[in-house]
């Protein structure tokens, strides 16, 4: 194998594409599936699917569960699972709603900015505490995560009912609502987009430079440029489309920040490295000085934090704390990770992939909603998709 292959001839291009394809067949298969779903729904809805309003809604709807996927990747990578994320996010949303509706009015009346900030802090703290609690039982008391989070799911479902007392709690104070329902002004949106594109190209070039310096295998320059250009085009397309509606939604911005931070943590910190080592070979990690208990505990704390973020955005977006808050979110979160390449066997998975998976799940949900498919059938479809996703994951792993 040569280190660089700038063979520009047609044959070279094709053979490079095939080699890359085979190496990443799972990622590409998913992208193909996503495009297929989009085309299917575009036809079924007579083009309504791709209207600016719908695209904006689709992406924003995705964010609530995507926050959960961002945290779920490392949970699954270490060989664990968190079934409680939906109900924990829901629990956070009703707690925050309760503070917004009654509590702040009692102790800090007429302080919209302060109370909004405090609500956010409360939401994040609740999420962190719940995550720490579960993480402690899983890591230090060695109770399997499946059982702990299953129990927590039930417990917090009860918690939601207790807090709401069966009613919906309004949480539509304007400043608070901005979190879930606000938009970036079009110019701000473009500035962010341009910033991201510049960052993408910079990181691509610096990663190439690093690889060259270390003598690692380098894919041809035109391929990397093509890939980065493709992402840039998609980004520009998204911003253009949503700017013609209301602009980039705030939750999307928050999600992007979360995903980038988490992705960095996974790849460039000891914490992330240890997680992948634990998932790749737990025994070898243990014998290599990795503190498994601390690492897994921290991962569940982070998961809790992201449940908090999700809950806050949920309460703000809907404008209410509802009895059914968070119902079924874990399904979306787990399916997104697996669709995006996180292996059920542990040790593999990326945040980026989980975002693509999330996009697929959101595209499905959104399309089914437009077509007025009853939510019971939506569950059926999504359940089947999850099973298919896990099957293809196992299939690809076996044939490696």
């Amino acid at each position: 194998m040569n280190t660089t292959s700038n063979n520009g001839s047609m044959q070279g291009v094709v053979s490079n594409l095939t080699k890359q394809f085979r190496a990443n067949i799972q990622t590409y298969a998913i992208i193909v599936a996503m495009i297929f779903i989009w085309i299917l729904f575009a036809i079924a809805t007579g083009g309504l699917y791709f209207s600016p309003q719908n695209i904006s809604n689709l992406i924003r709807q995705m964010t609530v569960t995507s926050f959960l996927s961002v945290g779920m990747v490392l949970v699954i990578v270490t060989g664990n699972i968190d079934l409680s994320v939906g109900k924990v996010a829901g629990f956070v949303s009703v707690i925050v709603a309760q503070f917004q509706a009654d509590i702040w009015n009692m102790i800090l009346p007429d302080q919209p900015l302060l109370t909004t900030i405090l609500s956010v802090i409360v939401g994040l703290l609740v999420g962190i505490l719940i995550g720490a609690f579960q993480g402690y039982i899983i890591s230090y008391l060695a109770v399997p995560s499946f059982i702990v989070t299953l129990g927590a799911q039930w417990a917090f479902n009860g918690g939601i009912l207790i807090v709401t007392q069966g009613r919906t709690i309004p949480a539509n104070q304007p400043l608070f609502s901005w979190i879930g329902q606000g938009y970036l002004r079009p110019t701000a949106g473009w500035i962010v987009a341009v910033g991201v594109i510049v960052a993408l190209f910079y990181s691509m070039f610096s990663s190439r430079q690093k690889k060259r310096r270390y003598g690692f295998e380098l894919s041809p320059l035109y391929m990397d440029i093509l890939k980065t250009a493709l992402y840039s085009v998609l980004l520009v397309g998204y911003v253009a489309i949503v700017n013609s509606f209301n602009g980039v939604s705030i939750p999307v911005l928050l999600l992007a920040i979360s995903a980038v931070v988490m992705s960095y943590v996974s790849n460039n910190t000891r914490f992330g490295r240890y997680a992948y080592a634990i998932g790749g070979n737990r025994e070898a990690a243990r014998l290599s000085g990795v503190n498994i208990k601390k690492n897994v505990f921290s991962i569940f704390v982070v998961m809790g934090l992201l449940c908090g973020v999700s809950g806050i955005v949920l309460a703000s977006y809907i404008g209410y704390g509802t009895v059914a808050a968070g119902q079924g979110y874990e399904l979306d979160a787990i399916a997104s990770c697996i669709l995006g390449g996180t292996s059920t066997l542990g040790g593999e998975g990326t945040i980026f992939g989980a975002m693509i998976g999330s996009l697929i799940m959101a595209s499905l949900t959104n399309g089914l909603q437009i077509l007025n498919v009853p939510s019971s059938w939506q569950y059926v479809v999504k359940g089947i998709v999850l099973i298919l996703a896990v099957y293809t994951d196992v299939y690809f792993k076996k044939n490696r």
Partner: protein
Amino acid sequence: MNDDNAVMAANGGDASSTITNPGDKDIILDFRNVTKQFPGVVALKDVSLQIRRGEIHGICGENGAGKSTLMKILSGVYPWGTYEGQIFFEGQELKLESRSIRQAIEAGIAIVYQELTLVPGITVGENIFLGKEPLERGAINWDKLYADTQRILSEYKLDIHPQAIVKNLGVGKMQMTEIAKALSENAQILILDEPTSALAETEIEQLMTILRTLKEHGVTCIYISHKLNEFFAITDTVTVLRDGHVITTQPTQDLSVEKLVSYMVGREMTERFPESHRQPGEIVLEVEDLHAVDPEESAREVLKGVSFNLRKGEVLGIAGLMGSGRTELAMTIFGEYGKITHGTVKLEGQILHTKSSRDAMVQGLSLVPEDRKRHGLVLIQSILRNISLPNLDRFATWYKIDDNAELKASRSFAQSLAIKAPNLQVLCNTLSGGNQQKVVISKWLMSNPKVLIMDDPTRGIDVGAKYEIYKLINDLTAQGIAIIMISSDLEEVLGMSDRIMVMHAGRSAGTLDIAEATQERVMSLATGIA
């Protein structure tokens, strides 16, 4: 009678040209020009070999000579299509398709490994009939199961109770159970892979008796062993493998231990190990009367009094049979296994407290584990990631890993250990055993240990790579690192150690200076006789 075979094999002759006439019912198994390759190493080269019906055929050779590869092909672990050449069983070509041993068992070829495959929590009878329990109207017919078990045991004179729970049996009886299991499948060929490595003298005698009984019943046995003396007690024919070739196949009566050794080694023994000029310094590790229990079963004592010391720049070999507690000792000192109930471990005069591998590492103790695939490497990750894993603190803060420093450091170790790979991004599961082992060693050298414990460091590695690791050990001792080398290969222990500590049943049976150590003395300490 067997002279033709011997001449052919010794000349690397082409067995297919002299036809085992289809009528020669005497030959039950016929290997013809079998070749098996792995990336980087050719395990078997043009192996041709014939096994006569009803004989006990011994196979010997150094580690890496190709014995287990040959048996894996015969038992179906490496199915037809993954090797070149042909194997004829009872005159028909043997084509095992699946990667499990099921097909071979159905064909009548059963293998009893060193690592036993019994389910410890259930009875002998249940193990023997696992998966083929006699049924009566859908439920298990226990009476029939135990009656059949007793029948098999009596027929082959195996002295075990059919309802004994396997984990309560000694290793010897567990092995008998495995043999019984193979026989219950009507095995015509029984392959025994290092059957006596975990047995005491009396149990070995029992095994020999059982094999003679099997022979009377017409079962053909292939007997693989390192213990050359045993061939003369039980086998009819012996084949010697070396570096993947058949060197010779001769009737046992025409051979002697010295002849076998010279066939096996093919060169002066002294060339196998590099020269070393070690000058051991002051004592760096002292273990005194160490007792430890199984962390999950505190009633079970795994170390029953181990004492030894280790000096700077020295290689202390630890020998002992399977089950003597060597690995448990290493893991306990390393902090990742047993609960110490008595005794002390002192590193450079200070009492060593290790509750985890990290503790051990920080204090200057490293362990290269016995099973590199299960405990040493994250196989799906790259060489770079594996080498740096325990050492990330050197090039990382809480928010960032310095890629440059990580790469530079890992690269320097990879180069000094001569790891053969195009670059450090290569995944470890693509490397040969020798290179994998070097990755494990690299990662532990980077943490600058004062004491390096290596558990069976050259197991399953080809001869060339072994030599490289021996040279590396010499280099390390020259730098003042103290090395404990646990090994199941007696010649390796004798060839590399300055002193040898022999373990038997969880205690240190004795320590020998290299000058006074011989195979016999080590073995008698290891088997508890001395």
